């Protein structure tokens, strides 16, 4: 089942008067429980594309459809459903946590946001942490006190709290070491199998994308084509 669909999207920025094209007429279909890999050299607009797909930025042209509806014309309720069901994991795992809060505080903020009652926080956190293979003692640490691999697991755990249908993974392993990368890739495959989450896997590393993806889309500078 088609869940997220980008229809000829393009993005350009206004820069000192002239328009700067990041990417144009890019289309992608994301099906329930499947992984779409997005590869391309850096500077071809992969990360911008991730932000557009996640609804963090408006495309300059084209539309992003979630469950058949343009995400920028959604009603309030539909938008909050979209926000809950589409999550993003970023490249810098440590940077995706607020440096002034402990991991526990960051987690609890999300739990409160989805209206989990306070007495269930502990259970819920134990559940997701067990799922991603983290110790509970991490909760009392600050982001700079844990390793990149642990932070990326914690970021995945935090995304899981929202029970997403789609996860957009923007270079989730490029900042990690080889052996940790292998661990995270396995974790992601496991999570996908358990929860039938669709992934958009963005990376510059063709090997990693080939390993993870059901279909692959190659992005090149400015023009982007469909392959496979």
């Amino acid at each position, binding site marked *: 089942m088609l869940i997220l669909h980008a229809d000829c999207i393009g993005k350009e920025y206004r820069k000192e008067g002239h328009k700067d094209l990041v990417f144009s007429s890019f289309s992608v279909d994301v099906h329930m429980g499947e992984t779409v890999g997005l590869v391309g050299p850096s500077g071809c607009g992969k990360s911008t594309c991730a932000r557009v797909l996640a609804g963090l930025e408006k495309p300059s042209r084209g539309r992003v459809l979630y469950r058949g509806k343009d995400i920028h014309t959604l009603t309030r309720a539909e938008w909050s459903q979209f926000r809950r069901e589409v999550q993003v994991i970023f490249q810098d795992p440590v940077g995706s946590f607020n440096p002034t809060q402990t991991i526990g505080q960051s987690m609890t903020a*999300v739990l409160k946001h989805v209206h989990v009652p306070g007495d269930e926080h502990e259970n819920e956190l134990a559940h997701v942490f067990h799922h991603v293979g983290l110790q509970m003692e991490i909760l009392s640490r600050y982001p700079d006190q844990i390793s990149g691999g642990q932070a990326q697991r914690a970021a995945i755990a935090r995304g899981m709290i929202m029970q997403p249908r789609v996860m957009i993974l923007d270079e989730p392993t490029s900042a990690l070491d080889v052996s940790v990368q292998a661990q995270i890739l396995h974790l992601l495959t496991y999570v996908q199998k358990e929860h039938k989450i669709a992934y958009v896997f963005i990376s510059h590393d063709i090997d990693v994308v080939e390993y993870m993806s059901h279909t692959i889309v190659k992005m090149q500078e400015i023009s982007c084509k469909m392959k496979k």
Partner: protein
Amino acid sequence: MIPSIKIARKYALSALLIGIFVIMATIPGYIAPYGPSERFGGYQTPSTAHIMGTDDMGRDIFSLLVHAARLSLLIGVVSGVLAIGIGVIVGLLSGWLGGIWDDIFMGLTDTVLILPKIPLIIVMAAYLEPGPKLLIVTLGLLSWESGARVVRAKVLQVRTMGFVLSARCFGFSSAYILSREILPVLFPVIVPKFVLVTASAMIAEASLSFLGLSDPTMISWGVMISDAFTHSGFIRHMWYWWLPPTLCIILGVCAITSIAFLYEGRTRELIQL
């Protein structure tokens, strides 16, 4: 634990000075031997009854010094709070909303930046009734621009960082993100700015009072120096009249600024943005 003790020792003097000033400001009646308007013989030299002598109107200088702390500190701190409050709000909105709002807010900031502050206050004091309130409001309204600029720059930097993007992905509202995610990260730049604005407001108050442009009936260190100057304290070599308030201003400003640097230095290590 060892470094924290070291830091404490290094800044103990500043903390002690600030502590003394705050006590002087809150309970002057218990420290000062006399009230601020009690009168004795004028121009007395220091003695056991009046350890810093008396001024032209026969008021005990030491008691005046203690009572003046309240207004001097109040003007500094309140205008500091006002300035940093406006600065943070303008900076946050400017950096977060971007686009046309950024242009508007930054235009406003630049306008305030080029206003010559002291001359403007002089002109205002000439037309409006001079007093502590006017000083606080004008100093506050005229010194928020540097805070706004720093905050905006930091917001622009932080808003593209992973944790802010994550918060947006989780569907947190802008107000939540600004207040709970971004504001705490900004503290390392806000606190020193606040302290510097406070210190410069104290100096501005002293300068204006010295120029005779504030309410002559109010009791502040600046007014004391001004009185000593205009009522022949200098000619009579009454150093015990003008020197103590001068020292109070200098020490107060130094102590406050050094605390700011302490805070800045410590948080830099914690949060490297």
